[in-house]
């Protein structure tokens, strides 16, 4: 059986379980919407007091936030591995994963998917459309493909960072809070990087490249040519970070010794 058909079978199974508890799923989507609304309100209120933020206007900031939501939703839907160490290493669940005929990481992605997070992408696209019309942006026919490429690259950046962190679990299963910390650092990517100081900007570009999830790809659609170099780098960074994480993962799996019985 191919990976694609396994994926769709897991996805349909997942939808069945979620639809059994409709109210629960609905409340979850609503509370996601609420937290996105809070972030938008923040931007709106702040721009009641200033017209430009380090050279970015209100609608540009909103556009960046809208774009950020799309890769973040893709990541949230398929890479829920923040509790990997607790769930798979400490409890010994990894034993079961390794007996499955598909790649171990893919198996975990299938088990841990949360498709309702994809609603965040819808919100993001709506936000982008609204702010784009406020900004009178013009698009070419190929921009749709550029958008898809950049959004997937952003998701790969996120996935790469978090898979790398999860791989640490293969070497050390001691409890760390590095994952929630990383989620908070990821929020830095929602805003233009030129508001930060040089060190943080450098870290956000080359070490923990969260800037490639929001501001750098958005710059392309906003026509900010001074950032184009970084926009073009986005797919490269995405692929590099994703492959580094795959390498770490595959290396880690060989180190896995199992826990308990």
């Amino acid at each position, binding site marked *: 059986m191919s990976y694609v058909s396994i994926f769709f079978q897991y996805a349909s199974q997942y939808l069945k379980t979620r639809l059994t508890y409709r109210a629960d799923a609905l409340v*979850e989507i609503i*509370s996601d919407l609420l937290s996105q609304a809070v972030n938008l309100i923040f931007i709106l*209120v702040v721009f009641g*007091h200033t017209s430009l933020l380090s050279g970015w206007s209100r609608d540009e900031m909103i556009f960046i936030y809208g774009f950020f939501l799309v890769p973040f939703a893709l990541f949230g839907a398929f890479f829920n591995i923040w509790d990997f160490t607790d769930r798979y290493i400490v409890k010994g669940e990894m034993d079961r994963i390794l007996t499955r005929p598909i790649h171990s990481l893919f198996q975990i992605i299938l088990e841990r998917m949360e498709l309702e997070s994809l609603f965040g992408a819808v919100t993001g696209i709506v936000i982008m459309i609204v702010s784009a019309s406020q900004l009178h942006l013009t698009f070419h026919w190929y921009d749709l493909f550029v958008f898809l490429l950049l959004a997937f690259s952003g998701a790969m950046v996120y996935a790469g960072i978090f898979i790398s962190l999860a791989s640490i679990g293969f070497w050390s299963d001691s*409890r760390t809070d590095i994952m929630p910390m990383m989620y908070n650092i990821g929020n830095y990517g929602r805003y233009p990087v030129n*508001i930060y100081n040089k060190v943080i900007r450098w870290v956000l570009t080359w070490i923990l490249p969260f800037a490639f999830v929001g501001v750098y790809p958005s710059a392309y659609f906003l026509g900010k040519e001074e950032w184009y170099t970084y926009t073009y780098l986005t797919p490269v960074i995405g692929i590099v970070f994703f492959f580094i994480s795959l390498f770490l993962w595959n290396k880690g799996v060989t180190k896995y010794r199992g826990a308990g019985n």
Partner: protein
Amino acid sequence: MAKYIEMIRIRFLMMLAYRTNYYSGILIYSINIGAYYFLWSAIYGDKGSIQSLSIGQMTTYIAVAWMARAFYFNNIDREIAMEIKEGKVAIEMIRPYNYLTMKMMQGLGEGIFRILFFSLPGMVIVYFLFPVSFSAHPLTWVYFLGSILLSFMINTQINLLTGIATFFLFNNAGLIRAKRVVIDLFSGLILPISFFPGWAQTVMDYLPFKGISYIPSMIFTEGFQGVQIWNGLMNQAVWVILLFLPIGMLWTLAKRQLIVQGG
């Protein structure tokens, strides 16, 4: 009374036993304070002050708002929800104490632990990282302490309300999450209330949330002066008293319709 003080003590010791879990929390809060610090620096640009807060006061506001959050924040809503779901609440109810008071005391034990082992060291770290300024007036500190105690009360009462709501909703994980998001915004944690447009401020005057973060933080940064401080403290105190009403009502209703399965 002695039994409730014992509750505070036990929760404090319990937290103390797992204190290493909290060091990373300080880092997470510092990361958040950092994000808002840079954002606000960019927003201020070369403006001297916005809504009568200078950039220095704003930085202090963010730092103290987050560190005070460590004190008033607790998960007793989730704990109550768990105990209701697992049926443990039935045992709790026949024990010789008031369940809700006991929960509040546990929250207080947690809060005291966090202010000593989280907020104080956190403040020191933040002080070295960001241009935070502390008031030299001892009275400001006294007002601030009074104010965060009241903010703990308000936040805990709201948590009790959401917790008790489990009796009626059965599964309220979503409500708990939504409540947290709403409080972050309306309490003034991420934005001082005075930055909101006028109509929104009027609405928030009628809500208890600004007593959670805005009032204590404004007192600490000395954004409130003289009579404003007293008005703020009064506002908090009134809400503490008012919130006892819905809690009492919901609790009586909940006890009447409680069905424990198994347990």
